[in-house]
């Protein structure tokens, strides 16, 4: 899937002039001088409605309606070719009792944690370092961002070659120092690790740019005050940078949650099914993410109703996780 939009500005605090230290106003604060035409009813604003209508029409037709329709499908038995048959909650009952579904959820969560934590932490550290240097700034930004403009397909093929059990570069290097080949692409944990590494490689530079934007907006006076209090760089990082960056971190965590839980292309390309390997998602289905299971059920087994049920149950799960994340970060803020 196309990666969900992520950028810094969303939660970057705005610093308008004003007394006292920078305050983080809600970004939905209307701009000071918004042009406010007198309210003469809906019709007088037809130009604005016309201006936003292309988006909303396409949106309703190709996103909103399909999302609702998939909920309808989740209550049907449908093979994509024959007729639909209403089955009530049966698909969800199957889902509840389907160990493969729960396995796919576990896989997805593990891959998500293994990739998101290093990605965000690495991005924050790199952004801080980059913010602190004077020279080669532009070069670093470009060089570190470039993994993100490559396609997942290309990267997955590459990782598949490098981590291949029998002839990959990684095992060859390990071999020269006397370590026997590591089954990167057959051990269930290592499979997840490779997928997570792939995602980390792709997304660290991207999040770094977001954090950098946030760091640049932090007023220097705060750091100067901290320095006067005798705080070292590490303490400054944990006690000033991270708390101030909290809104941005929250934003990246939410976006990474949505993004990371949607991993599909990585295992799909990495373990492309072929005659030698009939397992979608690799050996032991260790790389079978929920979306890959959805794809398998809907498009390979022609079980469209079940596919819709999988993806809706999964959506509810994402929402729960986002709320939990949000709560955690909020609570951390209060304490």
């Amino acid at each position, binding site marked *: 899937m196309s990666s969900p939009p992520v950028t810094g500005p969303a939660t970057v605090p705005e610093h308008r002039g004003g007394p006292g230290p920078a305050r983080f106003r809600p970004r939905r604060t209307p701009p000071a001088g918004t042009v*406010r035409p007198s309210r003469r009813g809906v019709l007088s604003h037809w*130009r604005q409605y016309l201006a*936003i209508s292309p988006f909303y029409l396409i949106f309703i037709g190709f996103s909103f309606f399909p999302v609702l329709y998939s909920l309808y499908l989740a209550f049907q038995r449908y093979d994509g070719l024959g007729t639909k048959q209403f089955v009530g909650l049966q698909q969800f009952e199957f889902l509840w009792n389907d160990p493969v579904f729960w396995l796919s959820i576990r896989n997805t969560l593990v891959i998500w944690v293994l990739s998101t934590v290093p990605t965000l932490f690495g991005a924050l550290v790199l952004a801080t370092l980059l913010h602190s240097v004077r020279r080669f700034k532009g070069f670093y930004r470009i060089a570190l961002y470039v993994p993100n403009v490559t396609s997942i397909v290309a990267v997955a093929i590459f990782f598949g*070659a*490098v981590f291949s059990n029998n002839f990959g570069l990684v095992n060859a*290097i390990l071999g020269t120092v006397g370590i026997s080949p590591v089954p990167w692409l057959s051990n269930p944990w290592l499979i997840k690790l490779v997928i997570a590494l792939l995602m980390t490689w792709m997304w660290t530079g991207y999040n770094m740019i977001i954090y950098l934007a946030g760091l640049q907006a932090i007023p220097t006076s705060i750091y100067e005050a901290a320095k006067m209090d005798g705080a070292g760089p590490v303490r400054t990082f944990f006690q000033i940078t991270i708390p101030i960056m909290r809104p941005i971190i929250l934003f990246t965590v939410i976006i990474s949650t949505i993004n990371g839980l949607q991993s599909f292309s990585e295992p799909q390309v990495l373990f492309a099914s072929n005659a030698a390997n009939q397992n979608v998602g690799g050996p032991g289905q260790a790389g079978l993410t929920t979306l890959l299971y*959805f794809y398998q059920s809907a498009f390979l087994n022609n079980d469209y109703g079940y596919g819709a049920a999988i993806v809706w149950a999964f959506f509810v799960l994402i929402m729960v996780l986002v709320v939990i994340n949000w709560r955690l970060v909020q609570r951390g803020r209060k304490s």
Partner: protein
Amino acid sequence: MTTADTTRPVTGTRRLRRPRGLTAHVFLMVAVLISVFPFVWTIVMATNTTEDIYKSPPKLTFGSHLLENIRHMLNTIDFFGSMLNTIVVAGVTTVLVLFIDSLAAFAFAKFDFPGRKVLFGTLLVFMMLPLQLAVLPQFILMSEIGWVGMLKALALPALANAFGIFWLHQYIQNGVPDELLDAARIDGAGFFRQYWNIALPMIKPALSFLAIYAFVNAWNDYVWPLIVLTDPSHVTLQVELAQLHVGHTTDYSMVMAGVLMAALPLVVVFAIFARGFIAGATEGAVQGS
């Protein structure tokens, strides 16, 4: 604190961090190596034969088989045909996204109208929706209107780019002064004239960021084309590339030649526009100051 402080925050930090400069460079260089290594190694694999790759220890230097591998790859898949399809889809999508999103963002950012908050709120909610929820019905929808297998089935859903509106909205709000719009209105310019003559020229950096963002996304999209492009003569580069990889007889050096040639255009385009792109990405953040 005055505004001047916030616009030049770097000076202070620099003073603060100077002693750690070298360590920072070392760490950053390591990160750069990690980030660039796959590109180098892809070239190594693409310029050698598959036997060289399979060998243990594998060959670590550039070889001389690049052209041969590319020729082999071109014989296996319709590389340029699928690339042309990708360029068409990504190009059309980008142009339309820019137009649709900037127009809507302008209306949202600078005008108040009944339902504005609610409509904008739904937009934010839908930024969070996993697209997969819609994939299945989108496919059925495309079947019903007979677009399965056609490139327009790729472009249309991509046009509902909520992120673009949101992003431009933030930018326009801070980057386009109300005074200019007021003056234009006094001169008799209507909504669309204000949009075209005043707002658009002022948000060029944000537009160029969004353009690259939309183009890269369209270029790299894989799942939707995989599902919807059933006609083998009309697939996109990513789908074609993934097909190189399937099957018993994976000829890695040939596949890597394909990976290299598919990744190269984007990296080159990015390298050319990178300065503006990253400036656009960070600039929006400090617009308000």
